[in-house]
């Protein structure tokens, strides 16, 4: 259980780290907008303060009846409108259309997960390798079968269900179908820039892909860039841990598995690690986000709304298949034991 203090150092002070393939464009839009907003505010602000001082009432000074000629202000107004149109048509609408209008095709082999939201937990239903979701019915709901899976349905044999525990592969499109059992909830994964309301009576699909970079980084200068909008950089890497031990030719550990901060406490330390990895001949390393990724509820759903939180764990595509097979085996063993 991560302490608040640790979480602060892992999550940073502005936008949370971003691990999806579409999220960088959202961050870029937020950044561009705020630069524009700051420019407009300070522009107005300078003019405003200047007027407050220059045109204060004092003896010998009186106001001018004639209006100021409007040339400059018209230009500013037009510039604002043009900027907004550019942002709208170039930076926002395409991103939203991309996010909403391009569901993953069959060829891309998406992983489909059913997400059931209820007061105050998230339930995840995986269909398993057969690609078909087993039948569910409220009459089967019990403490161990919270989604109400009909275990007699042959398609349910490889179905998995978890509460507040979500596992997803990186580099593979994910399609989530979101259900709400009682009131409106909202599936929010801040670190993936994903948010979608869960509305009772509806089955709402969303899709996103977790960036392979969340689990793999090329050993290159990019790893130690100090700032970059969304690309691999030390700024992002430092929120990760190595997924395995990386040793140099002599057998000494360069990067210890799952060790917090092993990638360097600052960019300079990071450069040292980078050099050692290069010398040892690595071109790629496997990583895991060190901070716990959370799926939270963004729509008021009752008195324990704030507790509605699931843990999200990322795996490489292969790891995910292995994990899934393991879980199916465990489930069927348990079911056999029950009889």
């Amino acid at each position, binding site marked *: 259980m*991560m302490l*608040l203090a640790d*979480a*602060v150092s892992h*999550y*940073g*002070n*502005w*936008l949370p780290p971003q691990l999806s393939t579409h999220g960088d*464009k*959202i961050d870029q839009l*937020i950044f561009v*907008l705020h630069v*524009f*907003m700051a420019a407009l*505010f300070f522009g107005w*602000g300078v003019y*405003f303060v200047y007027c*407050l001082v220059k*045109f204060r*009432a004092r003896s010998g000074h*009186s*106001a*001018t*009846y004639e*209006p*100021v000629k409007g040339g400059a*202000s018209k230009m*500013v107004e037009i510039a*604002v409108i043009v900027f*907004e149109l550019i942002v*709208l048509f170039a930076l*926002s609408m395409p991103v*939203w259309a991309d*996010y*909403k*209008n391009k569901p993953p095709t069959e060829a891309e082999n998406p992983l489909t997960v059913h997400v059931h939201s209820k*007061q105050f937990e998230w339930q995840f239903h995986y269909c398993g390798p057969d690609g078909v979701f087993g039948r569910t019915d*409220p009459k089967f709901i019990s403490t161990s079968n919270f989604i109400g899976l009909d275990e007699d349905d042959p398609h349910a044999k490889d179905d998995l269900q978890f509460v507040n525990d979500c596992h997803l592969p990186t580099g593979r499109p994910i399609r989530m179908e979101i259900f709400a059992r*009682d*009131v409106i909830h*909202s599936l*929010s994964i*801040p670190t993936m820039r*994903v948010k979608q*309301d869960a*509305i*009772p*009576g*509806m089955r709402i699909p969303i899709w996103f892909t977790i960036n392979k970079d969340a689990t793999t980084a090329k050993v290159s200068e990019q790893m130690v860039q100090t700032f970059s909008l969304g690309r691999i950089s030390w700024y992002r890497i430092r929120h990760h841990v190595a997924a395995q031990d990386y040793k140099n030719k002599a057998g000494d550990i360069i990067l210890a598995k799952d060790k917090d901060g092993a990638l360097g406490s600052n960019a300079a330390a990071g450069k040292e690690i980078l050099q050692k990895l290069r010398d040892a001949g690595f071109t790629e390393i496997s990583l895991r986000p060190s*901070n716990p990724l*959370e799926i939270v*509820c*963004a729509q*008021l*759903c009752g*008195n*324990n*709304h704030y507790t509605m*939180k699931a843990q999200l764990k990322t795996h490489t595509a292969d790891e995910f298949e292995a994990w899934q097979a393991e879980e199916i085996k465990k489930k069927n063993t348990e079911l056999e034991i029950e009889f």
Partner: protein
Amino acid sequence: MSGAHATDSHAGHDHGHGHSHDHGHGHELPFWRKYIFSVDHKVIGVQYTITSLLFLLFGFALMWVMRFQLAYPGQPIPIIGKMLGASLVDSSGILIGNGYNAFGAMHGTIMVFLGIVPLAVGGFGNYVLPLQIGAPDMAFPRLNMASYWVYLPGGLIMLASFFTRDGAAQSGWTSYPPLSVVNIGGQTWWLIGMVFLITSSLLGSVNFIVTTVQLRVKGLSFFRLPFFVWAQLVTSFLLLLAFPPLEAAAVMQLMDRVAGTSFFMPGGLIVTDVVQNQYSGGGSPVLWQHLFWFLAHPEVYVLILPGLGIIAEVIANNTRKPLWGYKALVHSAIFLGFMSFIVWAHHMFMTGMGTTLSTFFQFTTMVISVPSVIILTCFIISLWGASIRYTVPMLFALSFLPMFAIGGLTGLPLGLTASDIHLHDTYYVIGHFHYVVAPGTIFAMFAGIYYWFPKVTGRKMSDLLGKIHWFFSFIFINGVFMPMFFQGMAGILRRQYDQSYQLHGASAQGLSMMASWSAWCLGLAQIPFIINFFYSAFAGKKVGKNPWEATTLEWSAPSPPPHGNFDAVPVVQCGPYEYSVPGRKSDYLPQNIAMEA
């Protein structure tokens, strides 16, 4: 009675006007007719003002308690903790989740519907509008009285819900079903209260529109109206056209709660493991959202427009020159009002909206930012070439401008769907709208109170107390809301009883401490105002008709105006802001010919 009198055109009026009007009674009205069930717009305006200020204070107090829980989660509330009921706190006086949500829902509802709108429209609009157009009263004085006496019970019904077993409504001021239908708490009272409040606004809005169109004195054409009147006129159209869908929706939700209907209830609901077989289903929760936001978006322009009207008056008066871009201001206000009806679904981008609809609403949302920018720009350019008097109303009016700018600008990332994905339902939204209503509208309300207090009472408020009030309010109000943008960026969600639960926002949670302490200090900063308000009403320095040397018509009535308002019916000779006209000895030319020096 007074209705017939008020609709007579002034042009043919030949009663003597050198006495106060008795409207045909020939005797003084009894106390309860003069001050309680009065049809005089000024008495009603004062009633609205006092009532709404009390509601605002109460709504603010709810937030002091909530902010304690946010700054010190899980700690017993000091002093009053153990006194609050079981629907709000546990046995040690710690606020519970239901209590937090009840306070949250009621804070929003009280501030918007019981506080700001009644103050801005019922208080300022009622008192000032007839005076500014030279009328002796509203077109329908009895309707006016009715609108106040429907507002008050509506507000009291809502407050009464705190004393029920399960406490007040606790599903947000937005009351989204199915939560609002299945939740415990006083949601039913909330819905009934809303029906009263909406009815009150509808009665009032009809009155304002007819009064403005019909009762302007001779010479007062539409484009000679003070911008305050234009703002109130557009506001009234918004109230008239936008509120009815919400009133209908409130009745529908009420039926879902008490009569087993399924307007907003889909089938197959399972709440706390109990299948909800009592609903036939087929209803849509999203329908409520559309009906609610169809009002609630124009509602936010109802919240800001009267404030913009007040700011216009105060700026013109204290710059001693005409407002820059009067025509642009009027056209922008009208365009803003029209546009406000076609942006509402930007509150619903995350409901599963497809690209066609969200593109439309994104686009209209960008378009609506244009008139707001124009209005703000006109006010700022009005300062050029001015002779700025730093009176207390002017301090509030000037500080309004950058605060409204911050509020308006931070609406941009929210109004674009892509950036809204990250920022929706976070503290960024709370920061955005509070900047527009708190250091925005509420500062405009303070400007209006300090400005028109002499007209209402015949006495000035203390400048020293006013400046202290302004200075500390300005500092602390920024201390409350500026951190919220950072919290929103970090992903801290709204309506969270305990923010520390979610680790991704951990870095910004310390800011909650700053916001809470600022909120408590902001509360203390209102003490000089409260003292000033009541003390000055009885013992403030006496003033004549026009202490601010202003041009608009209300300043040609006595302070305070008698029943019927004017000694002699005003005749208008010019526009509303003829200050520093060249070639004149005095630096202002009153609209009323009779007041000309």
